């Protein structure tokens, strides 16, 4: 059965704010929204690509570093715009989300709807919890994404 709507939380929960995307995914998973599959991944580009295969709508949530204030949230429709590569894809092997999206576009495998929620991180300390501002951003993204998904359904 092909998945219609997919939420992918990207990051490494053992590296402080890098776990933001997965925290969002976990919380959304608990809501058990009808027709929505929620997965967590460390963000290797090839895994993200293969997860997206066949989905009609994909929402990717990841931490980013762009110089903005910690906890700032950006919603990017990647079917319309490119991701600024330097700021995204903090996967452990630096071949992550930005590359996955770029590759999907080049290979014409981007789902018809593909939205990235990016949360500006404050720290990537080993074993640290989410920073306060990023924790708040996680709450906000869960709320925003949840209502976006319900509207879509």
């Amino acid at each position, binding site marked *: 059965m092909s998945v219609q709507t997919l939420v992918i939380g990207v990051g490494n929960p053992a590296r402080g704010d890098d776990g933001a995307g997965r925290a969002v995914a976990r919380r959304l998973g608990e809501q058990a929204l009808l027709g929505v599959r929620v997965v967590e991944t460390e963000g290797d580009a090839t895994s993200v690509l293969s997860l997206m295969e066949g989905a009609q709508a994909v929402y990717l949530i990841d931490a980013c570093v762009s110089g903005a204030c910690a906890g700032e949230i950006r919603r990017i429709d990647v079917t319309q715009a490119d991701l600024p590569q330097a700021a995204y894809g903090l996967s452990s092997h630096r071949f992550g989300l930005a*590359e996955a999206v770029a590759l999907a576009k*080049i290979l014409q495998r981007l789902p018809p709807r593909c939205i990235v929620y990016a949360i500006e991180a404050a720290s990537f300390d080993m074993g640290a919890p989410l920073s306060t501002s990023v924790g708040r951003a996680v709450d906000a993204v869960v709320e925003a994404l949840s209502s976006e998904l319900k509207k879509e359904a």
Partner: protein
Amino acid sequence: MTRKTIKVDLLARVEGEGALKVVLHDGKVQSAELNIFEPPRFFEAFLRDRHFTETPDIVARICGICPVAYQMSGVHALENLLGVTVGGPLRDLRRLLYCGEWIESHTLHVYMLHAPDFLGYDGGVQMARDHAEAVTRGLQLKKVGNEILQLLGGREIHPINVRVGGFHRAPRKRELAPLAERLKWAREAAIETARWVATFDFPERERDYTFVTLKHPSEYPFNEGRIVSNRGLDIEAADYDAHFEETHVAHSTALHSHFRDGGGSYLTGPLARFSLAFDQLSPLAQEIAREIGLGRECRNPYRSIMVRAVEILYACDEALRVIEDYEEPDRSFVAVEARAGVGYAATEAPRGLLYHRYHIDDAGTITDAQIVPPTSQNQACLEEDLVDFVGSFLDLPDEALRHRCEQTVRNYDPCISCATHFLRLEMDRA
């Protein structure tokens, strides 16, 4: 005399954190130093005071790309300690799991990390614009490796189904059938991969390496065998420490492995396996190796991409053999009981020999662990490649020379995970 420094603040296609510094003086390479951080050292401490049965789940976390290698070396070392032999279908399933990892890891390196060097792109994404068909093939091929890990390991990354003595659950025969169909496609894709990489231009550089690999009388090396070299070494894993040592070097937090008593560096991984175990490759892998112009041995590290392609093909063949022969075992594991002792094992990670040693007490608690990853073993050899080769590339413009240095590092597919990965390359021309 002018002094020039070339820096790269971020190198995307090496899996590790560190810096490379090449010092050139009067047209000669004075020194080459690769500094990479090495998280596996912490894992040896994490393992202490844990029960031995926790080992596969802990060591799987050392690497997201080659967790199976860590699990396999770990469980074999412990089974060596406990006097347990795992045979029959369970042993074959371990080979199958290793096939999955080789397919996945090698394919990622061939297509996304190394091929861009030969075709003149900054990375796999840029390469995909002009080579969409090849990249798509690579992604699909890697996925087949992932599917093996998913089925046998319980998930694609950091598998959870491996235990000392076997598996928590053995697959049903019917579960493996769809995998066989995928592997038949993968085998063809692997042949295409080998033919594709053979069209690349390779710098004609060779070194007289001391190759070190596992050697088994009838199998291409994965899980079992003696540790041998092309210079007469032929030992059990238990004797590893008597022949090899890890030393600290001032420029790196990573340890460097050498032969003891000043015996020098050595090379593990695809070139060593291929050169010392060519006869154990499947007939098809041997045939394709010959067709693409590899001899029975390969001493050109730039051609390691061709050898990896042949090893992907072998892994597909071997996986199909295991699936065809598979009979469901009565139990998914051999029972093990704690007893005090020390155990040793080495297996073949995609990047090379991976050695583990464990001490446990009567209660089964680990009191000491040693893990020597392939990248640590290859690092001295890698630096020697740079010293030997870079001098012959000095007519290249700075940008191309820097690129050639990076390519020389990537020949090794060095892998140190668990870090945010910056590689700064600094080159002094004096």
